[in-house]
């Protein structure tokens, strides 16, 4: 049923720290690697070794230059499904293939019901859904439901593949419906934000903006690798001879 649940028990989601993300793309490849044989498998590639490779990915990392009064900075920005509380991708679905789980709030696609009309991809402002043109159905982030509830994995591995892969700890997974959960506390401490809140989709995933630059930080200029003026004495004489 594509009507939304009145509320969800948990609100599982990600908190992404734009301050520490270094844009290494580890989360992107780890996601692809896990999910191409996971719940939504396969993540089909089209013409992967040709001139214009294309394919289904759940997670994409953009890079931006953010210039403001205090200066400029490079920001790496991972973009994936935000598992919204009011996701239009679910309500526009004509077949009931798209649904939001009442138990944990994860937005999923039932690939046996999807007709590939792509209206859900139009309804998503964040570009989270992609058509698999080979299978003919829509694919999207599952928040790794086949990892987070997987008893065959060690408890510390029961997190989404992107979170497990991140080398800088920029991705956090947890219950954002619980105000005392570590992720909720992180969001309140760091002033986490919703993306495009004006559209009213109420994303569960939050983004932590880059920390402001501390005022009065010492300007640490690197020491010159070699002296600019030639030394005196014997070495100076050698230097002058060789430079001539």
């Amino acid at each position: 049923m594509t009507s939304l649940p009145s509320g969800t028990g948990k609100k599982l989601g990600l908190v992404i720290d734009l301050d520490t993300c270094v844009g290494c793309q580890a989360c992107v490849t780890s996601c692809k690697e896990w999910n191409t044989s996971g719940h939504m498998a396969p993540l089909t590639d089209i013409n992967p070794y040709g001139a214009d490779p294309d394919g289904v990915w759940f997670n994409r990392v953009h890079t931006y230059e953010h210039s403001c009064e205090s200066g400029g900075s490079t920001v790496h920005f991972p973009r994936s499904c935000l598992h919204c509380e009011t996701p239009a991708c679910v309500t526009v679905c004509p077949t009931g293939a798209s649904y939001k789980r009442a138990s944990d709030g994860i937005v999923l696609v039932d690939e046996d019901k999807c007709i590939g009309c792509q209206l859900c991809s139009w309804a998503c402002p964040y570009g989270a859904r992609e058509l698999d043109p080979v299978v003919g159905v829509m694919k999207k982030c599952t928040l790794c439901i086949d990892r987070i509830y997987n008893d065959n994995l060690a408890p510390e591995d029961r997190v989404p593949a992107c979170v497990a892969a991140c080398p800088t700890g920029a991705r956090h997974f947890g219950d954002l419906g619980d105000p005392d959960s570590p992720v909720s506390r992180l969001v309140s401490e760091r002033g986490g934000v919703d993306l495009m809140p004006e559209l009213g989709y109420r994303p569960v995933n939050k983004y932590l903006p880059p920390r402001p630059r501390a005022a009065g930080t010492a300007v640490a200029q690197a020491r010159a690798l070699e002296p600019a003026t030639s030394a005196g004495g014997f070495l100076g004489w050698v230097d002058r001879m060789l430079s001539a």
Partner: protein
Amino acid sequence: MHPAFSIIFFTTATGAGYGLLAMLGIVAACGRLPPDRWLGLASLGLALALIVIGLLSSTLHLGRPERAWRALSQWRSSWLSREGIASLFTFLPTGLFGIGWILFERTDGIVAAGGVIMVAAAALTVVATGMIYASLKPIAQWNTGFTMPAYLIFAIMTGAVLLDAILKLLDWPDRVVEYGALIVIGLGWIWKRATWRHNDRLTSAATVNSATGLAGGQVRSVEWPHTEENYVLKEMGYRIARKHAARLRLLAQLFAFGLPLVATAIAAATGGGVAKIASVIAVLTQAPGILVERWLFFAEAKHTVTLYYGFETTGRT
């Protein structure tokens, strides 16, 4: 948005078909529809052919067309599902109307009453089509009060021009249909110009700042996540050159509204062979015109996801 031909053809063909059905029902309700079997066969046949070919064309757009029947299940939340149900329901009153008109040569009484239900069902189908687009918040150019009425106006406009030509060709010219066609062509022209005027001045609530959560200052895309175009860019990142858009808008106005208006007026002012030819010219010029109009409807619509790729989502194309 990517202008897929299957969807452009689907919306214009079914629009004209449902518009023609609605015109027939309205004219019957006014007691002015000639109870002639051959007229019924020609006009209902054309309307149903446009609707059926259009609906079949829409399934070409699907990744799994064999599952299309599933789209009838989610009418509680989905306008696409409602459109599917309304389009199929319309065949019921249309069938009854056709039996009365073609088999019994009656267009009054209970047949006209069936025609009124047919008008309502056709209108509901077109409203659902329009609402599919009007309800999409990520596309500012569609998410306005102009979109749904535009689908209704263009459906009745193309239907009226078709009916005017059919009536003239089969020698049943009708003043009310002539004037009706002229009025809706004019209304369509005004509505389209007002829509363009509104959309060219749109300011989007969503910006690249709110899309990335980076408040204040300027956010410039310096690197995409992929070197080639992906699904998102192919489907929602379609961009049309501004000079082409301006020219196509002129062509759309000339063919969808200008020439049909003149041809229909000539057909109304004259009679006999000249009126027949003029009314057919109105149909033949409006068909490519409305296709260009619908192509632009998609090509000029900008999706918020393109903000992530450094595109502008408002202003003239």
